[in-house]
């Protein structure tokens, strides 16, 4: 099976004022195509930092991130931006652009990748259909519920046929019922569309839908295994 993401002895230290904080302390992970990996850990365990490093948004202090075998520390800023287009990021607080409608938010991702107007409009509509939001696509984020906003964010993350999805507490800001719906949607994407998913959460219910679970504490993977 093809390895999509691999981290080798990944370390990250950042400064909180003058105090160095060890966010990651040697993380080794391997994610294969089609995996649905849930990384569980309490807040402050370094799981968001791990996601940022895998998503090429931040640079490690030590160690390597390999994406499809390529060490991303060797890439320049432009190549990193290109890489991010092929990584679907879903955030806890949705991070939609408030002045754009649901469809335009999805289109923006396609426009950044240089897709033409008509083509991206059609594709955005198709993606919103997949996440079940076709009839709400002309609404702005403020007119949508939390669950609906997260669906838009997922549709946006899927826009440029990503190599994998990175989800940072996707249900963290939703009530449990809506959270379950999102979990189901993610599960469906993994099973039906064969999309590789790496998800960090402290929500135990997400572990039900994942097929691999890793526990992270104090910047280290303490337990990992197939379900």
């Amino acid at each position, binding site marked *: 099976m093809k390895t999509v993401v691999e981290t080798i002895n990944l370390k990250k230290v950042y400064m909180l004022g003058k105090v160095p904080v060890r966010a990651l302390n040697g993380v080794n992970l391997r994610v294969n195509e089609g995996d649905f990996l849930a990384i569980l850990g309490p807040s402050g365990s370094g799981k968001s930092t791990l996601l*940022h490093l895998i*998503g090429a*948004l*931040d640079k490690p202090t030590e160690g390597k991130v390999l994406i499809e075998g390529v060490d991303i520390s060797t890439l320049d*800023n*432009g190549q990193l*931006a*290109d*890489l*991010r*287009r*092929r*990584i679907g*990021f879903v*955030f806890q607080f949705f*991070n*939609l*652009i408030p*002045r*754009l409608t649901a469809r335009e938010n999805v289109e*923006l*991702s396609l*426009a*950044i*990748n*240089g897709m*033409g107007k008509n083509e991206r409009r059609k594709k955005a509509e198709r993606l919103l259909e997949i996440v079940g939001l076709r009839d709400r696509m002309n609404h702005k984020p403020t007119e949508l519920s939390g669950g609906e906003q997260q669906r838009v964010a997922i549709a*946006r993350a899927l826009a*440029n046929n990503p190599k994998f999805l990175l989800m940072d507490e996707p249900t963290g800001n939703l009530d449990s019922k809506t959270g379950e719906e999102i979990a189901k949607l993610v599960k469906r994407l993994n099973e039906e569309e064969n999309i590789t998913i790496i998800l960090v959460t402290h929500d135990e219910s997400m572990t039900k839908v994942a097929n691999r679970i890793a526990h992270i504490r104090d910047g280290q993977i303490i337990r990992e295994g197939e379900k």
Partner: protein
Amino acid sequence: MKISDIFSYAFSTIKLRKLRAGLTTLGVIIGIAAIVALLSLAQGFESTITYQLQKGFSTNTLVVTPGSGFNQMNRNPFGTTSSGFKLLINDTQLINKIEKVNASVAVIQKTCYIKFNDKEIGLTITGVNFTQFKNIYSTTFVARYGEIPSNPENDTVIIGYRLRDPWENGTILCDLDDEIEITWTTRVGIHSENKSYTGKVTAVLGEIGFNFGGGPSDYGVYIPISRAQSFFETDECNMIVVQLVDDSEETIEEVSESIKELFDNQVSVSSPTAMLDIISSAFSTIELLLAGIAAISLLVAGIGIMNIMIVSLMERTREIGILKALGMKNKTVLLIFLSETIIIGLIGSVAGIVVGWSLAYIVGRIGELSGMAPFGVGRRIGAMGISITPMLTPTVPLGALAFGIMVSVIFGLYPAWRASKLNPVEALRYE
């Protein structure tokens, strides 16, 4: 990301903050309008003055006056020079022998009291050979009423256009065939003595506008040279106007030198063409000054742009983080921010050009209607029947447009650069 998408994204962010963008644009409009209005008025003013000056003189003439440049500054009130050098009427014969000189005419000028019917006015009387003077100033020494005689009677007088109707309201001060009394006060020892004679107006000149460089004037009174010689009891003249074969710089230079040499540097020779050049360059300086003042207001507008873009940068930090997480390149972020300032600069410049031009036109119109042109000297110019039409050469609006966009780019560059350099993770965390 396509350029068109970058621009439409930038435009959508401007639309979101209409009032703020509008006020920033207003700053640019004011700056550009000031530049366009001031420059087009100044250029209109310059072209009007230059045109009037050129109308009043011949480009191929030189004016010879007694006294070297230095002595002229020490000229005493009686018109003689401290060196005691005198330019004689017959000196024209010497000047005529110089190569490249076509003709020359001696001019006697004295201040006299002239009685027109019941009004007495102090004016400069000019004694010239009418035929020669007319040859040199063939476009301006032309009769509008009556005729300029080639063999004038002793009492012939020719007056300038404005002396006929100085108030421009139809009240004729002095008309054709009127008799005027010319009185000259001369000194005999310590006493002063009045001399008078009565002349008859045989011609009124056409309107000239601006008198410049020895040529005929709207307020001039002209008598035959022979009469002037006998009346003022002198062989001395105040100046000699020399006509050259052409108006090239070399000819002007060459003949000027020859004349100075001829009179042993006791005369100064001035060229109206050279003087016009000096006036032109003075105007250029004034224009530069005005443009500079206007440019300051545009600079203030530029600082406004920078200020607003930095505020915008802070407000949109999270948005920039999202855009970067979606894979937008730093360069594209920079271009989005720059596009916003360019749009503001472009709209502001175009509107500013329209406003500035309208303003210049209105000011020019007001000047025309009230006979009061801008720039202080207005009343005098206006009274001479000159109206200022603002000139809009393509260089002014194009230059203003380029300058407006340049300023918006320069002041937008720093916030755009800062936006492009934001760290995505920190930007996403920004509240």
